[in-house]
């Protein structure tokens, strides 16, 4: 298939955009990356995702697929013979992977995002406590799902690794802002090791933003009053 057949509308700083990029890399699918300008939405984006007007949007032979986790599953289904499977084959393990991915988006990430918007010290402390509680759940989920292997998906990175791993750069930015290690090797040793392995994976490295660059960007979109 020609690379012009697959396009992805996105932005470098978005963790949701990272998801399909990692999936396409894992499947060795070449694609054209169409970078949106921060603060405005292109005609193509508005036309391709009229319901939500959000990135990422995958365009495969001009047919749009929206919602990052749905795009990752689509990539897995479409290029099923290329590269390892992104989801477990067992129906129960599949359901668990999707369950944790939904928990990450609906609970864990909502809390993470609230830190950079948080006001006083009390609020920030509460957010960190909630995140650490979430991490404890994810530590157990990792042990259950990975069954002794390096990733949630086993030997290779998969859907759930991608669902959580895409937030690691933003997590580091939050840790800098909080001057506190939220993902702690002492408290969540397996998850911490996993994070290291994830970030070093060749499918992830090219699309994971540098912490410093992301921290600068964060200052722009979450302006903080001068202390």
């Amino acid at each position: 298939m020609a690379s012009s057949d697959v396009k992805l509308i996105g932005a470098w700083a978005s963790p949701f955009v990272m998801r399909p990029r990692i999936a396409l890399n894992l499947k060795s699918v070449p694609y054209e990356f169409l970078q949106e300008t921060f603060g405005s939405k292109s005609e193509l984006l508005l036309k391709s995702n009229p319901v939500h007007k959000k990135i990422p949007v995958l365009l495969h032979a001009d047919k749009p697929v929206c919602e990052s986790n749905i795009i990752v599953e689509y990539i897995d289904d479409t290029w099923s013979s290329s590269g390892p499977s992104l989801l477990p084959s067992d129906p129960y393990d599949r359901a668990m992977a999707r369950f944790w991915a939904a928990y990450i988006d609906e609970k864990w990430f909502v809390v993470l995002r609230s830190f950079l918007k948080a006001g006083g010290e009390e609020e920030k402390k509460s957010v960190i406590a909630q995140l650490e509680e979430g991490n404890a759940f994810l530590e157990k989920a990792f042990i259950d799902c990975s069954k002794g292997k390096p990733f949630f998906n086993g030997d290779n990175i998969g859907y759930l690794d991608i669902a959580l791993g895409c937030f690691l750069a933003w997590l580091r930015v939050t840790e800098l802002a909080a001057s506190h290690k939220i993902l702690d090797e002492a408290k969540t040793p397996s998850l911490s090791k996993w994070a290291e392995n994830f970030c070093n994976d060749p499918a992830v490295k090219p699309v994971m933003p540098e912490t410093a660059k992301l921290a600068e960007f964060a200052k722009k979109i979450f302006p903080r009053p001068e202390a």
Partner: protein
Amino acid sequence: MTEKEESVKLLGFWASPFSRRVEMALKLKGVPYEYLEEDLPNKTPLLLELNPLHKKVPVLVHNDKILLESHLILEYIDQIWKKNPILPQDPYEKAMARFWAKFIDEQILTLGFRSLVKAEKGREVAIEETREMLMFLEKEVTGKDFFGGKTIGFLDMIAGSMIPFCLARLWEGMGIDMIPGEKFPELNRWIKTLEEVEAVRGCIPPRDKQIERMTKIAETIRSA
């Protein structure tokens, strides 16, 4: 061929669109199951034990496996019991079914329930915003018997349990004709067709009881 020793239990609630849609799938596929009704808001020790993280219905217990979240349960059921498949085979169609399912339980539910009841920008605006979202579904079902095509599928169960058999009762209670026939001919046609499906008929909450319940919940939201 020998029949495996299977045990299927479903924890549900009569008024919950989330557990009703699971019942539709089990009935469609002819899966025998034991139904355990929760007396919400009182939660049984069994529910709290099986779903400690979210404490919600539905919960499906298949042999020793515990399944949560209605969309995930439907996909699981489809993979285990192959009769009458409910998800499309084509990857693109599958992605679209999942997309619209998420849209219904998020956008339609928020706008058509909470936002409508609170009507912060006024009732007429809330109605228009809900109708705008429903128009996407009107387009999706145009020219098809069901969202799933010729036969009822995943998206029909999600949309059916949520819209005509749940949200529409709230709208009725509020005196709102949200999906009039002249604006939404396809959705209205789809509702009539859906109501005739045997697997669906037994999963429709009693109309008056549901109107009463939805109206009561609306009052709670308004006074919060």
